[in-house]
C-alpha cells in the first residue's frame, strides 16, 4: 500500500523525497517477489498450455509428420522385360548388380564427394568426365549413375562410409545387359537414366527412382511401356541421414513382359562380326513371312557402355569416326542400289511385255542423246538378252530397253518390290530413299524427265537411293513372289505374306538369271555357298560415289571416294527360304559385299564352316569386335592426349608434332 501511494505521488512532489525504511523495503520486496512468482507461474501455465495444444490438439498433424520422417517409401525399379531371339536366346537381359547413384540435390560438397568416390571405386578419368558432365546437366532430383557392376567389397566399403557421403545411394538392383554387345547396338538401342525432358513428359515418380532406366533408342525405346513392368515398393524406416534401419513392408516388382524377336541371335552376331572393319549393313529375311533373321549395321556401339552411362572418350570416338557408328545404316543409310536393281528392272520389262530373248549388241557403251553411257565392261558383252543382262550385269542392255519401256513402268515395279517404301516397323525412323519418275522430278526440281535419267535409274544410279532393308525386301519379293513386309517381332505362328501377283514365269526367269550370277557365267561366281546341294540366286551391285576423275573407285583410292559394294541374294534356289542384302559402304565394289553374303548364308546351313571362315578373317583383322574396339579406343585416347600436349606446347613445336589429319583407315 505504501509503495503504491508513493509512486502515485512522485510526479507532483519531485523535491521532497520520502524516507524509505528497511521495513518498507521489505514489503516492496515481498510484493514484487509475489509478482515475480505470479509471472513465473503464468509462464509455467503458458508452457503447459502450449504443450497440451501441440501434443493433443495438433497431435494428428505432428504424428503424420513424424511418420513421414520415419518411414520412407521407396520404389523398387521393375526388372525390365527380356528381349529374346526367335529361339528364346536372350538378346537383352538383366544382371544382378551392385551399383551407386548420386542424387545431386542431396549432395553437400560435390567435388569432395566425387573425389572420395573416385578414390573408393577407382573411377578412371573418362568416367569422372562423364559424371561431371551429367552433374552439370542434371536437374538435381534425378539420380545420376556413378558406377555399376561393383563387386561386393566395393559395395560394402561404400555403404560403411555413407554417413560422410550425403546424396550417394548405393543400390542392389538389376542392370541391363546385352550379351551380344555391339552386334545388337543398332537393333535394340540401349537404356539410360531419365533426362529432364523425359521426366517433364511423363511425371512418374518411378522415373527418378535411383537405378531406374528407360529405353533410349531402338526397340528398347519403342517398346518402353511393354518392357518396363510395374515397380515394387518398399516401406523402410530411415534415419535423418537416410540410413535404412529396417524394412517395414515390401511389395515385389512385376517384371516387364519379355519380347520375342524374329531375329536369330547367332546369325545377327555372325553378320555383324563378318562385316569386320567395314562399314555397312546386312539384312537376312525369311522371304515368305518377312521375319527379319538378322539386321546388322556396322560399325556399331556397345549398348552395354551406353546403358552404363557412356564415357566421355568413348562417345567422342564414336562421334568422330567417319564410319558413323552411331547411325543405323540398315534403316538410315541410303545408297545408290547400283546393279542390284537389274532383276527388278527385268521384271518390269517382262511385265511390260518385252520378250526376254530379244537382244541388243553391247559394244561397251551406248549413245543416249548426245552423251555416251558406258557399260561397266568397256570391251562390251556382245549379244545380250535379258538373262545375260542380269548375270553379266550388262548396262547397255538396260540402257537400251529402258528407253523403250519407259521409267513409269520401272518405277511402278520398284515400288511394288519395296524400293522407296517405308515399312511398318517399330523403329524410331527409317530413311526410305527415292525411286525417281517423271512426276517426281518435275515436282522436286521443276525439270522434265530426260532419257538419260531413265538410263541412270535402270542401273540404280542417279536419283535412285535405297537402304539395305529395302534391298532385302526386294530380294525377298523376287524370291517368293509374295508381298513380304519385314517383321521384327516374332509372330505367334508362321503367317505367309500375300501374293504379289507377278507372273510366276517372269519370276522364274529372273531367278534363274540370278542363279547364273553365282552358279553360271555370272559376276559373282565366288559367292556360291560351300554347302552341298544348296544353290542360290544373287545379284551384284557396284555403286559409283564420285566421278571417274577420282579413279575407278576401287581399293586404290581414298576410302570416301570408293564405290559402294552391294549384293542381294536368296537361297535355296529351287524353293527359296531366305533372302538377304549386303551393303558395304565404300567397299570398293561388289566384291566386298558378296563374300559377306555367302558366309552369312552359309552360317544358316553349316555353322562350323562359317565360323571357321570368320575366325581366319578376324585373325587377319586383329581380333573380335571387342578386341578391335578396345585397341581403337586406346589409340584414340593416345591421340587425344598427344593433341592436348601439342596444344599446350609452344606453337612452333606443335606444327611439327601435330598428328595427321587423315583418319585412321582400317584396311
Amino acid at each position: 500500500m505504501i509503495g503504491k501511494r508513493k509512486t502515485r505521488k512522485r510526479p507532483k512532489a519531485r523535491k521532497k523525497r520520502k524516507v524509505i525504511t528497511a521495513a518498507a523495503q521489505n514489503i516492496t520486496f515481498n510484493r514484487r517477489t509475489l509478482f515475480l512468482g505470479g509471472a513465473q507461474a503464468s509462464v509455467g501455465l503458458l508452457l503447459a498450455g502450449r504443450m497440451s495444444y501441440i501434443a493433443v490438439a495438433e497431435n494428428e498433424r505432428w504424428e503424420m509428420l513424424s511418420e513421414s520422417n520415419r518411414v520412407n517409401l521407396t520404389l523398387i525399379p521393375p526388372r525390365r522385360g527380356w528381349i529374346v531371339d526367335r529361339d528364346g536366346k536372350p538378346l537383352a537381359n538383366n544382371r544382378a548388380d551392385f551399383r551407386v547413384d548420386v542424387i545431386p540435390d542431396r549432395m553437400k560438397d560435390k567435388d569432395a564427394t566425387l573425389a572420395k568416390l573416385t578414390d573408393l571405386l577407382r573411377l578412371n578419368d573418362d568416367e569422372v568426365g562423364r559424371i561431371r558432365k551429367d552433374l552439370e546437366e542434371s536437374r538435381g532430383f534425378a539420380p545420376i549413375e556413378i558406377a555399376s557392376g561393383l563387386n561386393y567389397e566395393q559395395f560394402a566399403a561404400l555403404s560403411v562410409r555413407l554417413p560422410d557421403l550425403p546424396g550417394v545411394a548405393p543400390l542392389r538392383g538389376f542392370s541391363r545387359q546385352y550379351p551380344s554387345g555391339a552386334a545388337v547396338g543398332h537393333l535394340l538401342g540401349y537404356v539410360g537414366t531419365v533426362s529432364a525432358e523425359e521426366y517433364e513428359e511423363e511425371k512418374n515418380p518411378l522415373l527418378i527412382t535411383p537405378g531406374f532406366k528407360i529405353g533410349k533408342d531402338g526397340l528398347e525405346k519403342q517398346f518402353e511401356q511393354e518392357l518396363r513392368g510395374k515397380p515394387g515398393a518398399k516401406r523402410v524406416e530411415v534415419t535423418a541421414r537416410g540410413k535404412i534401419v529396417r524394412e517395414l513392408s515390401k511389395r515385389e516388382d512385376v517384371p516387364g513382359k519379355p519380347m520375342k524377336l524374329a531375329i536369330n541371335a547367332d546369325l545377327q552376331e555372325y553378320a555383324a562380326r563378318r562385316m569386320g572393319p567395314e562399314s555397312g549393313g546386312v539384312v537376312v529375311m525369311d522371304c515368305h513371312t518377312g521375319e527379319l533373321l538378322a539386321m546388322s549395321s556396322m560399325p556399331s556401339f556397345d549398348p552395354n557402355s551406353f546403358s552404363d552411362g557412356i564415357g566421355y572418350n568413348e562417345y567422342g570416338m564414336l562421334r568422330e569416326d567417319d564410319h558413323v557408328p552411331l547411325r543405323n545404316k540398315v534403316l538410315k543409310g541410303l545408297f545408290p542400289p547400283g546393279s542390284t536393281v537389274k532383276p527388278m528392272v527385268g521384271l518390269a520389262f517382262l511385265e511390260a511385255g518385252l520378250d526376254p530373248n530379244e537382244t541388243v549388241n553391247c559394244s561397251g557403251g551406248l549413245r543416249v542423246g548426245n552423251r555416251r553411257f558406258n557399260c561397266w565392261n568397256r570391251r562390251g558383252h556382245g549379244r545380250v538378252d535379258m538373262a545375260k543382262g542380269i548375270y553379266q550385269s550388262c548396262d547397255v542392255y538396260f540402257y537400251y530397253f529402258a528407253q523403250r519401256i519407259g521409267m513409269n513402268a520401272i518405277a511402278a515395279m520398284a515400288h511394288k518390290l519395296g524400293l522407296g517404301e517405308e515399312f511398318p516397323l517399330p523403329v524410331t525412323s527409317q530413311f526410305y530413299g527415292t525411286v525417281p519418275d517423271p512426276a517426281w522430278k518435275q515436282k522436286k526440281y521443276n525439270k522434265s524427265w530426260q532419257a538419260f535419267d531413265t538410263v541412270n535409274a535402270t542401273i540404280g544410279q542417279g536419283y535412285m537411293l535405297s537402304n539395305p532393308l529395302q534391298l532385302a525386301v526386294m530380294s525377298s519379293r523376287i524370291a517368293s513372289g509374295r508381298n513380304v513386309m519385314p517383321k521384327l517381332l516374332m509372330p505367334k505362328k508362321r503367317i505367309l505374306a500375300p501374293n504379289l501377283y507377278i507372273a510366276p514365269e517372269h519370276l522364274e526367269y529372273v531367278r534363274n538369271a540370278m542363279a547364273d550370277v553365282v552358279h553360271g557365267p555370272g559376276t559373282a561366281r565366288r559367292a556360291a555357298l560351300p554347302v552341298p546341294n544348296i544353290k542360290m540366286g544373287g545379284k551384284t551391285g557396284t555403286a559409283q560415289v564420285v566421278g571417274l576423275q577420282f579413279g575407278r573407285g576401287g581399293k586404290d583410292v581414298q576410302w570416301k571416294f570408293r564405290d559402294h559394294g552391294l549384293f542381294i541374294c536368296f537361297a535355296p534356289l529351287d524353293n527359296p527360304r531366305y533372302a538377304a542384302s549386303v551393303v558395304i559402304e565404300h567397299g570398293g565394289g561388289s566384291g566386298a559385299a558378296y563374300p559377306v553374303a555367302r558366309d552369312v548364308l552359309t552360317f544358316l546351313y553349316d555353322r562350323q564352316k562359317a565360323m571357321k571362315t570368320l575366325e581366319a578373317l578376324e585373325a587377319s583383322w586383329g581380333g573380335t569386335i571387342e578386341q578391335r574396339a578396345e585397341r581403337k579406343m586406346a589409340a584414340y585416347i593416345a591421340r587425344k592426349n598427344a593433341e592436348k600436349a601439342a596444344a599446350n606446347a609452344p606453337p612452333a613445336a606443335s606444327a611439327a608434332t601435330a598428328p595427321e589429319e587423315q583418319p585412321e583407315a582400317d584396311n
Partner: protein
Amino acid sequence: MSGIIPAPIAQMPWKIIFLLLVIAGFGVVVLYSAAGGSMSPWAARHGIRFAVFLVMALVLWRFNEKLFKFFTFPVYIVIALMLLGVELMGAVGGGSQRWLDLGLIRIQPSELMKPAIILAVARFYDMLPAGQIRTWNAIWPALLLMGIPASLVLLQPDLGTTLTILAGGMTVAFLAGLPLRLFVIGAASLAVIAPLAYFFGLEEYQQRRVTTFLDPESDPLGAGYHIMQSQIAIGSGGMTGKGYLQGSQSHLDYLPEGHTDFVFATMAEEWGLIGGFAVIFAFFLLLRWGLGLAVNAKSRYSKLVAAGLTTTMFFYIAINLMMVMGLAPVVGIPLPFLSYGGSSMMTIMICIGILMSIEREMKYTRRSTLS
C-alpha cells in the same frame, strides 16, 4: 523424531534433495533412451556428474551467510577477470572461445557469472542504505556490476548468456526496490531498441534464428529444422507418448541435440503430455521452494539472493521449454537436470547449494529464536 537419526543428517535438506534426485534421475532415464538404450555416452556420466555436483552443493549448504557475503565481491572479480582472460586468449590464439582450460578442468566463466552476478548485485543493494534506493547512487554501481560481465560475454559472442546475466541482475535490482518507473521506461525503450538491434546489431545467422522460430515451416530444412523437429517430437508424443525407447524422432536422429538443448522433446516424445506435465510440475515445486525462501529469509541479502538465483533457474527452464515448443528462437540454453552437460549443471547446482544454505540459516535462526 530427531532422536534416532544423528542431527547433522536429520538437518540435511532432504525434501529438496529428494526432488532433485527425482528430476535428475529422470534425466538419466531420458538420456539412456536418447543414446538408443545405452548408459553410455550420456546417461551414466550425467548421473555421476549430478552426484559430484550434489556433494558440491552440500558443501555450499554448510556455509553461512557471512562467508557468502565476504566472498561475493572477490569471487565476482575473479570471474570477471577470467572472462577477460578468455577474451584475451581468444584474441591471441585467434578465434573466439568460451572455455578456460585449467589443465584438469575446463571452466566456462560465463556460466559461473550467472550466480555470481546475483550475489554481487544482491550484496550491493544489501550494503546500500535504505534511504538511497531512489537515488542515482542506487543505479550506476549496479549497472557497472552487470555491464562489465555482460559486455565481455557479448564479445564472445554469446547473446543467450548475456541476456541471462542482465536479466538476473535486473531482477535483483527490481526486487531491491528500485522505482517501478525505471522498469516501465526500460521496457518501453527496449521495445524501441529491440527492432533496431535486430536489424543493425545482429549477425545474419542470429537474425535468421529469431525469424524462423516465428515460422519454422518456411525453412524446414534450414534454420527452422530444429524447431520443426522438436515440435514433431513433442506433438507426435500425444497424451501418453510413444513408449519408452520408442521415440522415432530421437532414435532416428531427426531431433538434433536430443540429449542437450532438446532433451525435453526427447522426453516428451516417449512420455507424452503426462511426462511433460510431471517435469513442469517438478520445476514448479523447485521454483516455489526458492521463492518461498526469498519471502521467508531473514536478511535482505538472503532474500535478494534467493529470489535472484531462483529466477536464474527459472530463465533456464522457461527459455529452454519455450524454445523446444516453438515459442522462442533457438538459443543454446539447456534444461536443468535433464540436459546433458557439465557447465550448466554446475551453475544450477551452485544456485541450489546457496539456496540450501539460505534455508539452513533460516531454520537455524528460527530455531535459535524459538529456543
